[in-house]
């Protein structure tokens, strides 16, 4: 009887998980999606508690308490730190999968090993490799995003890096296959596989630079999901397989979107060591960019009828979101059409920029995707670039020698005028000179993004309402 009850509860939970993601398709229903997800998870937990074999209630209560105590503060992080939090969560997900796989292997081994069928052993090997590499890989990614001192931000490369990394993985998989063949006799291989997976996770992320973090996080998201699927195979649990597959496919789609947004392949992201490729550091011609003052820029903005703001992560680093919202309000009040052009890789994880702007109370219908805003660019009076760099570099369209060649960009150079706020003329994250800054119609506003936008707002609010 209990069996059927548990299965029914799991069935309902599976449906709710699917609905949860379905409702995420629109901001108006998305919070219903969270409710569905929470209900599904509660059902899954209660359903599992019905399992007659569960006796260690003290351990369960203790672990749940620890989880709640750690989890609640983790949800309060500032939105700029959400990528790190996400990476840490992937690490926990991977760890959980790896530990359950390990426990299951030794339990079955202790029972004599009859239960370690080829299928199960294969699933356990997949679970621990995916789980443990996700664990260390995600911790490395979180460390890079948090800019922890002893983890290098720049890609770390050394000779034969790719060859040695791949051999490591191949050895781990070969060990896994040997284990499938003789799980009991070759049980000593098991901890070796764990060690290799842990090492591989670190080595996988070390050569990847900050600009590629959105892709890496998405990929690790996918791995965490797949490790849950493998756990489902090990435990013969369809709910685990379904929920894990949803997570895995979501991570896969996000990584594909991120790769397309940078015009790179998976292989290139994982083994390319971005940022090391080009060392020619711009042709040695001394071009000068035109400067503009906040007063002048405010006048230009006031005369415009359509303004597009291109925000980059630099805006968030300068904590300028609130000022940008005030600028948006000032311009909107004058009947000027203000839109935000969002590049898919703006920010440090998929969709990050949207969340950062939403936090500053900018209505979401003003946040326009790159592909939708680009056709409007030639009719735009003023483009204001705030802390964005590579995503507006026209070199991506024509300069075959540029490392960002082929990457889709926001066509800021096609607008009637471009204003770019920048701290200095230093090249951006990828170390590439931006020819947009030297274009005829571009004017630079030098300074801290928050201060400059604040000045613009002051100029606009000072001159309005009085006449």
């Amino acid at each position, binding site marked *: 009887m209990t069996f059927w009850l548990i299965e029914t509860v799991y069935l309902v939970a599976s449906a709710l*998980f699917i609905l949860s*993601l379905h409702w995420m398709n629109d901001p108006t229903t998305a919070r219903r999606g969270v409710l569905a997800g929470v209900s599904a998870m509660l059902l899954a937990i209660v359903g599992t508690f019905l399992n007659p074999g569960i006796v260690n209630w003290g351990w369960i209560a203790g672990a749940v308490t620890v989880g709640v105590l750690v989890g609640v503060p983790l949800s309060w992080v500032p939105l700029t730190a959400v990528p790190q939090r996400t990476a840490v969560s992937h690490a926990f997900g991977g760890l*959980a999968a790896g530990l359950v796989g390990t426990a299951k292997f030794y339990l079955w081994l202790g029972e004599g090993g009859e239960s370690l069928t080829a*299928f199960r052993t294969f699933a356990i090997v997949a679970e621990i490799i995916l789980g443990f590499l996700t664990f260390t890989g995600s911790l490395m990614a979180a460390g890079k995003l948090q800019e922890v001192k002893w983890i290098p931000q720049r890609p770390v490369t050394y000779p034969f890096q790719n060859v040695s990394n791949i051999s490591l993985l191949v050895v781990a998989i070969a060990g896994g296959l040997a284990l499938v063949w003789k799980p009991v006799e070759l049980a000593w291989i098991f901890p070796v596989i764990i060690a290799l997976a842990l090492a591989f996770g670190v080595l996988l992320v070390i050569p990847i630079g900050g600009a590629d973090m959105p892709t890496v996080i998405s990929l690790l998201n996918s791995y965490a999901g797949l490790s849950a699927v493998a756990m489902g195979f090990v435990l013969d649990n369809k709910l685990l397989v379904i929920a894990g597959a949803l997570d895995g496919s979501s991570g896969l789609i996000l990584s594909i979107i991120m790769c397309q947004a940078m015009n790179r392949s998976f292989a290139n992201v994982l083994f390319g060591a971005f940022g090391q490729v080009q060392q020619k550091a711009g042709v040695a011609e001394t071009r000068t960019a035109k400067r503009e003052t906040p007063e002048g820029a405010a006048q230009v903005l006031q005369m415009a009828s359509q303004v597009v703001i291109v925000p980059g992560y630099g805006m968030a680093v300068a904590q300028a979101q609130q000022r940008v919202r005030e600028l948006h309000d000032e311009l909107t009040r004058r009947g000027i059409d203000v839109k935000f052009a969002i590049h898919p890789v703006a920010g440090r994880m998929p*969709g990050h920029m949207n969340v950062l702007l939403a936090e500053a109370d900018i209505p*979401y219908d003003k946040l326009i995707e790159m592909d939708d805003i680009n056709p409007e660019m030639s009719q735009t009076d003023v483009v204001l670039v705030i802390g964005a760099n590579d995503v507006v570099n026209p070199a991506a369209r024509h300069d075959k020698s540029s490392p960002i060649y082929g990457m889709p960009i926001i066509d800021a150079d096609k607008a009637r005028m471009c204003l770019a706020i920048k701290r200095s003329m230093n090249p951006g994250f990828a170390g590439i000179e931006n020819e947009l800054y030297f274009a005829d119609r571009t004017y630079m506003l030098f300074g801290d993004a928050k201060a400059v936008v604040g000045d613009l707002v002051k100029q606009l609010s000072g001159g309005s309402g009085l006449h």
Partner: protein
Amino acid sequence: MPLEPLLSSAAAGAHETGPAGYTALLFVFLLATFIGLGVVTRVSRLLHTPLMSITNAISAIAVVGSIVIAGQDHPPVITVLGAVALAASMTNIVSGFLITDRMLKMFKKPGGEKRP
């Protein structure tokens, strides 16, 4: 009552999966992946960050496996492994859903007023 032993044997059968059970799981995996791909492609790009945090929470379904390992009567080492896995999964569930909701609350409706 000939049904009762049948049911209990079915329940026991849940732990002794034969080849047919394994392929059933593979089919479930295949179908769920396609459903996932279909559903996720329709998610608004506005919400990709909340999407990742909610799928993060959903993949903490590993909690089910963790409870089984930590809760059953096993040697202490195994119980500890399960308890650590359970704490890790629970962290993901709690922080994942809370932060997703926190972010979604920030998305203001085009009218200007906050969504309820």
